[in-house]
């Protein structure tokens, strides 16, 4: 993974976020939440800045980031793929769909392809159980996805 450098205004924005929480140690989770909103993920540099601003150790920030599965240190792909793992989707074979995505993209859940195009994540029920199994790419919903259909979805975005 390349070392990202924070741009000056993003850094300011991050400092503002910390300030909006009064640089309180106890607000770490909220600050991280907001920061992930800004950057899409939480690279090491972001965690270091937050640690300094809230006056906690970087190790502690990293500890919190790795404790909650919501937080990620990996940038999302240009086309984030999310597969529903709710009961309905699961029963109708979502797992096989995931396996197929993993196979074709050659990444694990939670990872991003080296070209930055796709990332893979799992979701809880997205409320479209009638269409199970459901796959989201960005905002777009694909219903009744079969393992065979996976390559077509990928092809649609892999330009």
């Amino acid at each position, binding site marked *: 993974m390349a*070392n990202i450098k924070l741009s000056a205004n993003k850094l300011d924005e991050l400092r503002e976020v910390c300030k909006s929480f009064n640089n309180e140690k106890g607000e770490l989770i909220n600050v991280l939440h907001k920061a992930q909103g800004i950057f899409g993920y939480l690279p090491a540099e972001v965690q270091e800045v937050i640690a300094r601003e809230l006056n906690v150790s970087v*190790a502690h*920030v*990293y*500890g919190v980031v*790795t404790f909650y599965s919501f937080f990620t240190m990996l940038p999302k792909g240009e086309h984030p793929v999310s597969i529903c793992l709710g009961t309905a989707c699961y029963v109708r074979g979502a797992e096989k769909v995931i396996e197929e995505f993993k196979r074709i993209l050659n990444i694990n859940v939670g990872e991003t392809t080296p070209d930055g195009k796709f990332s893979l994540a799992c979701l809880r029920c997205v409320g479209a159980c009638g269409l199970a199994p459901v796959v989201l790419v960005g905002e777009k919903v694909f219903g009744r996805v079969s393992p065979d259909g996976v390559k077509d979805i990928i092809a649609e975005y892999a330009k």
Partner: protein
Amino acid sequence: METIKLKIDNKVVEVAKGTTILKAAREAGIHIPTLCYLHLHDLNIENKPAGCRVCVVEVEGRRNLAPACVTECTEGMVVNTHNIRVLNSRKTVLELILSDHPTDCLICAKNGNCELQSMAQEFGIRKIHYEGEQSTYREDTSPAIIRDIDKCIMCRRCEMMCNDVQTVGVLSAVNRGFMSVVAPAFEMNLDHSVCTYCGQCVAVCPTGALTEVDHTNSVIRALADPTKTVVVQAAPAVRAALGEEFGLEAGTLVTGKMAAALRRLGFDYVFDTDFAADLTIMEEGTELLDRITRHLNGDKNVPLPILTSCCPGWVNFFEHQFPEMMDIPSTARSPQQMFGAIAKTYFADKIGVKRENLVVVSIMPCLAKKYECQRDEFATDGNPDVDFSISTRELAHLIKQSNIEFNELPDEDFDHPMGESTGAGVIFGTTGGVIEAACRTAYELFTGKKLQKIAFEELRGMEYIREATIDFNGLPIKIGIAHGLGNARKLLQDIKDGKSEFHAIEIMACPGGCIGGGGQPLHHGDSSVIKARQKAIYAEDAGKTIRKSHENPYIIKLYDEFLGKPLSEKSHHLLHTHYFDKSKEIKTVE
């Protein structure tokens, strides 16, 4: 004081309100086992994450068993610490911990000294009924400390030490569930982190997860090599603790037996780091006087206070965390390094041995010294001034391996010239000792008068931050003392904020000073051991005929024959150092 009455194992106990069941039981002589809990009473350090559940007891009227280490007593409580339900539950908890723990105790560095092992023994565990996946984690070796996290039981004592006591903040619990480990940020290796190698995490780790890098084999090899002359130096705090490894009571001084043991191990010259401590005082004390005089004469370029620099854990700390203040500490090297520099020049010449054929081994209470002797600036043409630094614990192993009956040894003396020391050198081993030694010399050099009373009681004790004003013939010299890096940080912050009024400050990274160092025999949570060592150190000082560094005849001779005078060019070259801004070296993930 409001008190509470309760019954523990049918014994009526009266305790202060707010007392935990664990403490109440201990007061009543009932020893409930604990694993994650740690209380260093004399140092005011406590760890109670209530994570391991080994300490559970039954409280009548409650459905669930209660962890004794965090459950407060209430009036009329009836506690049972060892009925069958409690015993079974404790066993289950322990078996669950063991089910995710390697069972290669025989070849573990902590074998015989591990709290988990002793507990399994006490509980009579013969079979582990839970088979599960074993977590594996890469081993991390730094210049001083090895992390073998497969052996971690997540008691989080190390984390508490590193974060709350030392405020270094290297270690934190990361990840969740089965994957959770205690690790530096981004799970990088320790040597990429801001670790000071103080070793306080090692000192409290109940298992073999954190241990020192062991150099005993290198020492054995050097001793066996006929082309090498091997010189050993032993630090002040070692003689006050080594006996514990041989079953002697804490606080037993074993100076003479230690010298005898080192001689029997085959060292060619058995010397004393205390000699180098006297030398440190000559240099640091002179520097102190020089800086105070120039500062008082209005030289604005001379900053005060001056900070001691003999603790490499502390040096690492300010290089990482306060690089903007690197001009404040004294430039004097630690006694370990002064010793090495003199041994490989002055002494090597004296005995006609070439530098590369002289091996210097140090016995230290300290793990940071392992790192210190590997620093580039302490080597000449790649040959280090100190070749190997081993801990008090490693020395004990070495003695046992060599079939030496330590307790039967006669008392012997150190060799000359680098084995002669004063009481001032000895007290380097405890918090307050370095600055007291410096005051003894600085006072006499500054005032030209003899001290009426050699012991500066006002500088002694275990309080974390102490201050005293010493009257230098009408000139009040304000002294500060801090031990434990968290307390050092407070004094440093005051200096940074311009609020400090001290002229000189002594800092030692370890709580208690080197007597509580990361390389000492393990205290297993009993901090009275550290107090006993402190007493021993002062007793050794009191028993010495010469108690001031500048009166050490061999130090006087060293200056006459070789160095000239303190702060001379030669002294600067061999006995002083400079510091590096390490804050930028803090690496992020690749």
